[in-house]
């Protein structure tokens, strides 16, 4: 299971929500509470150490977006980037 799906399981307390979501489904329209989406972003920051800005938020709509974002940051981090 991907990092983001694991965090969604942790937030919602069940694997059922995360299991049924496709990578390209807009999370905001998926029936999850808006507060839980806020908590997801904070949890991503806490677990990965990556800062998410307001500009980043514009691009983070799906599980796939989050995974790509984290992968990019990991590459940037390992190559000495910001």
């Amino acid at each position, binding site marked *: 299971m991907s990092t983001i799906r694991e965090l969604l399981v942790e937030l*919602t307390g069940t694997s059922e929500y995360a299991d049924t979501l496709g990578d390209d489904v807009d999370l905001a329209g998926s029936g999850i509470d*808006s507060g839980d989406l*806020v908590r997801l972003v*904070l949890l991503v920051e806490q677990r990965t150490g990556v800062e998410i*800005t*307001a500009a980043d938020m514009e691009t983070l709509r799906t599980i796939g977006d989050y995974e790509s974002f984290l992968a990019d940051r990991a590459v940037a981090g390992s190559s000495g980037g910001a």
Partner: protein
Amino acid sequence: MWLTQLLERNRQCFADRVALVDEHRSVTWSEFAERTAELARGLAGLGIARGDRVAVLSQDRIEVLECYFALARLGALFVPLNHSLAVPEVAGIVERVGAVAVLGESDLLDRHPVLPGSVRIRLAFDKPAFAALGTVAAPVELPVLPDSEPVAVLHTSATTGRAKGVTVDEGSFRAIGLGWLAVARPDDHVVMVNCCPLYHGSMVVSLTYLAAGATVVLLPGFTPQKALAAVERHRATHMWLVPQMLRFMLRAKASHSTDLSSLREVLYGAAPMPPDVYADAVARLGCGFRQVYGMTEVGGPFVTLGPDEHPAPAEVAERIPCGRVVPGMSARAVDRTGREVPRGQIGQIVVRGPGLMQGYWDDPAATREVFLDGWAQTGDLGFVDEDGRIHLVDRSKDLIIRAGQNVYPSEIERALLAHPAVRDAAVVGVPDEDYGEIPLAYVVAEDGTGERELLTHLAGNLAPYKRPRRIEFIDQVPRNPAGKIIKKLLRDGD
């Protein structure tokens, strides 16, 4: 006329200054006033008239307030809808108020392809037809309306399981607005980031700051990152949020890298401020704090505790006092018979004054029930201290406040009982660090009924913020001889 007068005065005094900002654009007072008049004429051209109800389904953006002011000019009633409500919840509200039009954002309107038969106009803010409204219509004479004219129907969660519409008039806005302006004294140099949804009674706070000529920055849904960025970008002096938002904001990494030095005051309300959040905020933000205690039925924010009255974090044992009632309104603590209790003694907080609602929409029985000898019952238990400050200690109502949003357990119980396999259900609020409280459901169900099945059922009928995260299956719901659920047993047993 309060809203119209507010616009006329601010257009005269601050014509080229920014009134509203959202993520798409900003408008000056002059532009805001002109568009409002234009929109009023355009809506009149579509046949919307005095007394009609117009529902608005949108995240916070400038068009929402333009509609609010435009409808008030026509004498039509603004009915804001919580965009997170499930399809049957939205349909229920639209049907009960008999809305003739639904305006809003395309993607939200698209979630509701079928609306009740009363709706004959459907217009999206982000389509050219809305922008063109009023720009080519023949001039329409706009009426001059008294303050007693109902201006909005704001919806709250209700014990009956169906949202209740609170009908307010311009007199209510005027009373609360003037009282608030007298004590909080915002001026036209204030820039306030409004983190709270405009579909909520809390929007009266923004209206009041607009009345002072302040600039209000609207966010399309709260995220800590967007709120922090808005403060930095607009050099905001004030923020309006619920304590859980403040907790999230302080937890975000961006809170360490954002310039928040412009902040002078953080307004908070709708839920108790957790002492740890307050202490953290005081230490890190270095600004003043203003508490807002309000209730939609009372016209919005009727009690406030200013920055100078806030205790030092170390002095906060459990709760910060709510503050004093604003001029023009009265509040007191009473016993079960409605008699005022002595200072320091706990009673129910009741409120009286020109800010009170006209009543619940089409529900005279519920309206009678909420008033006690002319005083509106808040359902909150508290006391008044020697300095006239109100302190809340508990609730007499069976209510869950989840991140500032009211949820009546009965609403969830009713939705659960609508499932054919559910024989009985009880919902209680349990503490939650992030949300303050969350609902937990106890269910007696047919053998073989699963949690997933019931959560899926609830997802189709209730907004996400009302849904319990967990369902506990039990053999019997504890009830007293009168059949009333003994919730204390459930809470204590969890």
